[in-house]
């Protein structure tokens, strides 16, 4: 196996991973504010891609404008999900809330192809097909742009956490009751987190949709996002960036090295293996805060 191929696989993997990271970012945001994982994140990414496609096809908007419109709509969708479904669950055990989001995932994942047709929809951002050479490594232009946008968005999110809104959300994450008593609107902070999570998911969904087409399989991003979120630490935004690159590189290398040996399909389980290994070795992730329950 020559080095150039490995380099290429690793670099492409890192870029792809960063796009997964965008989905994971939403999981981390929601976990930070409300303490539950959002298992609907994959389906929300898929729905974002479908909405982008709908704007591009039905309203005839240019694709990038359709993506912007979809991001706006999906922000509203995220907020609505929190308002209608999640808020009435406050005080219920975490498992119940988690299962509710999983139910939402099941519904969305089947409703979108069920209502809009299960054929793969094309989404074209007009990115040229010709690859870019960095040194002697060949990189797909779409991955480069997608990865760049994703990394930028994750960094923006990390910066956002030191703004007023970010401090507010961190306060809610730390202690909901205490935040309430100093006048922070806890519900609004959680709703904002859901809206932002939907935005990042939509961005990821649209980017992926432009590469592999829009179909229900976009919701499989959930497992990869979970792997990243757990590896980086469920409550760490910088962790997302590091873990996403790691997961992406692992996936790229595994696909390149193991696939020829066993005949394909490795890509789908790398994320699952990373979840299990992380739980075995370092359950709170690379940058996560260890939780100590006080009695």
């Amino acid at each position: 196996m020559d080095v150039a191929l490995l380099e290429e696989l690793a670099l492409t993997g890192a870029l792809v991973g960063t796009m997964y990271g965008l989905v994971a970012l939403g999981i981390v945001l929601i976990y930070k504010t409300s303490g539950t994982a959002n298992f609907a994140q994959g389906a929300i990414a898929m729905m974002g891609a479908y909405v982008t496609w709908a704007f591009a096809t039905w309203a005839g908007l240019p694709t990038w404008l359709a993506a912007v419109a979809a991001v706006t709509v999906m922000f509203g969708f995220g907020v609505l999900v929190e308002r209608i479904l999640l808020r009435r669950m406050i005080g219920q055990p975490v498992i119940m809330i988690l299962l509710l989001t999983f139910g939402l995932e099941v519904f969305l994942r089947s409703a979108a192809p069920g209502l809009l047709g299960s054929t793969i929809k094309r989404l074209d951002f007009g990115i040229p097909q010709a690859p870019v050479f960095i040194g002697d490594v060949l990189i797909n232009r779409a991955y480069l742009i997608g990865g760049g946008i994703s990394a930028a968005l994750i960094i923006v999110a990390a910066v956002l956490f030191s703004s007023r809104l970010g401090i507010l959300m961190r306060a809610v994450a730390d202690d909901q009751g205490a935040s309430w008593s100093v006048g922070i609107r806890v519900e609004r902070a959680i709703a904002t987190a859901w809206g932002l999570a939907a935005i990042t998911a939509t961005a990821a969904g649209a980017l992926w949709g432009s590469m592999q087409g829009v179909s229900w399989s976009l919701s499989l991003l959930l497992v990869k996002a979970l792997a990243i979120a757990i590896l980086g630490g469920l409550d760490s935004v910088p962790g997302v960036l590091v873990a996403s690159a790691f997961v992406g590189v692992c996936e790229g290398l595994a696909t390149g090295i193991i696939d020829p040996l066993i005949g394909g399909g490795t890509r789908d389980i790398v994320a699952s293996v990373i979840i299990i290994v992380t739980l075995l070795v370092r359950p709170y992730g690379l940058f996560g805060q260890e939780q100590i329950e006080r009695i």
Partner: protein
Amino acid sequence: MMFYRRSGILHLDYRSERQLWPLRFDRFLVATVIALLLAAPLIVNRLYLVAYLVPWLIWSSATLGLNLLMGWAGQVHLGYGAVMAIGAYTSVHLVRFGAPLELAMLAGGVASAAIGVVFGAAALRIKSLYLAMATIAMQYIIDFAIIHLPGVSGGVLASIQVPPVRFLGLQIEGDLSAYYMAFFVCAMIALFLLNVDRTAFGRALAAVRERDFAAEIIGIDTFKYKLLAFWASSFIGGVVGCVLVVCYLRTVSPDQFHLDLSIQILAMVLLGGLGSVLGSFFGAGLVLFTPIVLNVVIGAAAVRFGFQIDADLKAHLPLMLYGTLIVAFLSIEPLGLAKVYGNVRNYFLLWPFRTART
């Protein structure tokens, strides 16, 4: 409607107070249902027996197994289909090697439990949230392993035929013997779960479910009991996986145990009611039969009002329905159909009075 009569029931010793169904009417109901199920092959059409009753019994058994973990121990499992797959493949391979079915079935259960615990153990040390992730990862890894290990699946697209088997002296060949075998296993599992509450194990699980660190303080080894519940639940899953292939599917192939099966059983537990034996049967019935009924209704409506149903929509309708039902039940009636039945029963316990005199 004063069937659920409580008057005249006086417990004179602990034994009578702790019996499973203190109310005469409840005992009567249970006996009727068991009698009806035993006589079902004589009553209902053979087609209904195979297409509805057998799957209902098998899926109810699986629901009971998952419910032990989710309802009794308060943990979560999103990859129960994979657990059943391990049991199914283990037992079928053993039977093909000439092992008796009873032994193969138990071995399937043990294999499921052993492999399942490997995945669960890491996550059980931490919060339930992590268990959800570990089990969903398990689903994908087991799927992958089964497909890619030719020794297990017999190749990517292969399916393995179940050879002729005997179960407790009964030759499993026709629909009838398969029905009675499924009934027997289901009854055993239900009996076990009905009695779990009356054991130290069951009470420990209840404590763990309600608040695990409080349980730790009163001297319950939380991790041990979570692990035991996980083990027992996976064991049942493996056994049911074996029953599923022997009595219903007759051949085993990797695509029967995908995430869809896990979602289906999860929905059964949630809709039926966490921690309820009766609810598990309700939930399995609701989840299995609603898509069929809905399909018939929509089909009839399509003919009546002359519109076309999209094939895509038809294919995705069951999952849409499960998703909707999970979300609706969790937000409106988190304890499921068992609670709905319980409300009705409580109403009639006091009828014609509205509330008990306090």
